[in-house]
């Protein structure tokens, strides 16, 4: 049975993967086209649309904003998410059961609702700066990934090692950095990457928190598409894909890709 899959099933699977990869190949092809309109297969090869991205100041600005927000919100989520995941695993008896559900709420609540609620009840109500609101929204968005991934790597951590260090006189913070953190290193890397990618690609939260002068890359892509149908967007998409490939390569090096399938 194992090696005898029905040919129809195999043919179907081939078609599905063609369906999954094909559209992305088309985007790459369109980005390389020398024409002023989107076309595939590309007519004439050119990298001019990649140069064009950096000639449009809105793209330059939003790429920087998106990177800043992704780094900041991932950093905040790691800073508060790692202790939370540690507490959930180490002090399971002390803490109520609903606490772990609380940390996955940002996934359960529709992103649009979260984005709108932060706009209405935080940004507008307390006239918080847009950049700060974006960082708050994105930190919430990525927190569940951090807590979940770190919890998963802590599940196999033997807390008696930490006990041993403490009973031998190691202070708590030193124990954390020298004993615990090295043991969950791969989890931290995975959490960082998942959070970073999630933040960079986010539309539903950011869409409510862009205004004059501040916007994120995906929102800028949407805005550009409303006015122009040239290969610029395809080239930006390729840049984002290159980023994704780079990230996948890091995951592959450190953890093996099957990690992402869990």
């Amino acid at each position, binding site marked *: 049975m194992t090696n005898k899959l029905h040919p129809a099933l195999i043919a*179907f699977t081939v078609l599905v993967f063609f369906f999954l990869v094909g559209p992305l190949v088309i985007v790459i092809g369109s980005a390389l086209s020398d024409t002023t309109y989107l076309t595939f297969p590309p007519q004439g090869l050119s990298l001019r649309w990649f140069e064009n991205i950096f000639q449009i100041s809105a793209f330059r600005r939003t790429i920087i904003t998106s990177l800043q927000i992704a780094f900041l919100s991932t950093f905040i989520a790691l800073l508060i998410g790692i202790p*939370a995941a540690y507490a959930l695993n180490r002090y399971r008896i002390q803490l109520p059961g609903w606490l772990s559900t609380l940390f996955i709420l940002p996934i359960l609540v529709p992103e649009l*609702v979260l984005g709108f609620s932060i706009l209405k009840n935080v940004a507008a109500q307390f006239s918080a700066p847009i950049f700060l609101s974006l960082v708050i929204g994105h930190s919430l968005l990525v927190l569940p990934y951090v807590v979940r991934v770190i919890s998963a790597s802590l599940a196999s951590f033997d807390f008696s090692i930490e006990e041993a260090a403490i009973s031998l006189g190691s202070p*708590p913070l030193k124990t954390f950095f020298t004993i615990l953190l090295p043991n969950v290193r791969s989890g931290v890397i995975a959490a960082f990457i998942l959070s970073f*990618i999630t933040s960079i*690609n986010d539309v539903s939260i950011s869409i409510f928190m862009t205004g004059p002068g501040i916007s994120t890359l995906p929102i800028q892509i949407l805005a550009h598409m409303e006015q122009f149908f040239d290969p610029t967007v395809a080239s930006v998409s390729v840049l984002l894909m290159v980023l994704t490939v780079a990230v996948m390569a890091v995951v592959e090096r450190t953890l093996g890709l099957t990690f992402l399938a869990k």
Partner: protein
Amino acid sequence: MKRFSGWTLASPATLLVVIFLILPVLATIATTFMTPAGPFATYTSFFGSGFRRTVLWRTIQISAITTIISLVIGFITAFVVSRAPGWLKSILIIAAVFPLLTGVVVRSFAWLIILGKNGILNSTLLSLGLISEPATMLYTQGAVIVAMVYLFVPLMILTLAGVLESIPDDLIQASASLGARPVATFMQVIFPLAVPGLIVGAVLVFTGSFTAYATPQLLGGEAQMVMGTLMYQQAMVTFDWVSASTIAAIMVVITIAVVLLMTRIARRLNPMAV
């Protein structure tokens, strides 16, 4: 030296979620009941409007169709992936993870190129002589569904491949050696064991499509307005925040209802499930 207690360590994350998620979302929902016209006025006006009812119904339809198609495609593909030899399995998983990590804007944009009036599909069909003039494919319900299925199939494959992989080969061989045909083995052994995974996948896809914004906006536009795009329009174009809050509240209620309903179905179908 005193050690940190569990609450001390968990409190920053807890505070972030409580202050910036729970309170603002509850406040959004609360305002819908506090209008001068009475506590349920916004809801009677929502459901009283034929246009809004159409939008809600369309969203449910698109989400349900997307979920069913994604379940079927995802299940068959995940089955083949889970039984593939090691090296091939890695390649297939990479091919599924890559689109998943590529943003929703990029993936929807791809379909804009394919389905446009001068898009690849139209020009291919024209050159093959299958159609005589370009067909309108963008801004139809079909376009939104195709792009949503594209969005969610990788998620379904990855969710189900894990579940299907955990079904031991022995079980399938036992079923075959006891005389079950492949189809019977599939329906009576593999399918029931995959039910928990199918439910998780269905919940993820349904709630994801129900609250989607970018894909329906790009491929459906005004013509195929759904709850997400309507909510954005109310909030950011007409600045009717009470109406946007009402849509938000309806979205939250439906999302929670689907999660609870599906978990209950999962329990009934499989006592071993979550």
